[in-house]
């Protein structure tokens, strides 16, 4: 049977599991978990990033993420946000594995509070510890093709370069580097951090990224649910445009109507 020509023929595959959606959304900064759940619905995402934190002992009745976004239906991707050493990150993800029972995790080891730029030496060290411990590690990293290759060689499940600083909404600042990473990678490349609006997501996908992560771009939109839908369409459109292969750029005009037969 012929596949429908207007759809993406291939699913996103991370660590052996297939996903139809190429958009991953965050669960931070929303007004409420209820709004977050509605944005998730609108986004069509099948994976959400989550943080691991101390439970509130004084008020255990506070709303819980798991009561709004069902981890049996949606893949939880625990992160190490706020970790500045490899040891902190490994400790956090071991707790995440115990709490949830999942091996698929998002590693981020930050080097600086102001830029939240990744510390790549600590990131590589932590990635190695986690992979040795049986984790499937998706790694937030800088947009350096050499670092991406090192992560892949260590056995990372996905390479996740930043488009621009976390939460900045500045879009893709180094499309050339992202493209170089994509060309060399044999594991999924997912742009993580800096996606501010739908066009940023479309650009990432047109470059050939396998997926996009968006948290602040959706959560801090005036209407997060509407933006979640916009991101979904942008990711789909960008993916299809990538598969379609864009026209060559030219320096001058080229008429769309034939010149032959002109009266």
């Amino acid at each position: 049977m012929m596949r429908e020509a207007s759809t993406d023929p291939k699913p996103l595959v991370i660590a052996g599991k297939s996903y139809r959606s190429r958009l991953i959304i965050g669960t931070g900064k929303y007004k409420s978990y209820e709004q977050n759940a509605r944005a998730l619905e609108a986004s069509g995402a099948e994976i959400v990033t989550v943080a691991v934190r101390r439970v509130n002992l004084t008020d255990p009745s506070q709303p819980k993420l798991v009561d709004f976004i069902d981890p049996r239906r949606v893949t939880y991707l625990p992160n190490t946000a706020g970790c500045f050493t490899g040891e902190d990150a490994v400790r956090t993800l071991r707790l995440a594995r115990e709490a949830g029972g999942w091996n698929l995790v998002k590693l981020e080891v930050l080097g600086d509070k102001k830029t939240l730029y990744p510390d790549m030496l600590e990131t590589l060290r932590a990635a190695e510890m986690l992979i040795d411990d049986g984790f499937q590690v998706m790694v937030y990293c800088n947009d350096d093709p050499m670092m991406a290759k090192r992560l892949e060689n260590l056995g990372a499940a996905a390479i996740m370069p930043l488009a621009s600083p976390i939460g900045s909404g500045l879009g893709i600042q180094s499309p050339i580097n992202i493209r170089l990473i994509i060309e060399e990678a044999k594991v999924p490349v997912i742009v993580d951090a800096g996606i501010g609006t739908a066009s940023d997501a479309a650009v990432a996908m047109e470059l050939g990224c396998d997926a996009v992560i968006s948290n602040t771009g959706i959560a801090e939109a005036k209407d997060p649910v509407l933006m979640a839908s916009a991101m979904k369409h942008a990711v789909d459109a960008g993916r299809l445009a990538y598969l379609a292969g864009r026209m060559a750029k030219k320096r001058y005009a080229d008429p769309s109507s034939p010149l032959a037969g002109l009266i």
Partner: protein
Amino acid sequence: MSFRVTINGEERRFETAVSIDSLLDELGLEPAKIAVERNLEIVPRSQYRDTNVADGDRLEIVHFIGGG
């Protein structure tokens, strides 16, 4: 004899021996939604019933919250 345990950075005093299982119950926490670390070692859920907290223990009890 009473003893002290630090849970998520807060010191708590106990009068009698307490297992992690009953501690979670007392705190109103569902074991299925959390993870427990005792003196930097993860306590597997299967051992909550048989693990007693001891004087000077440092416990961390965590769960998933919203994040990016």
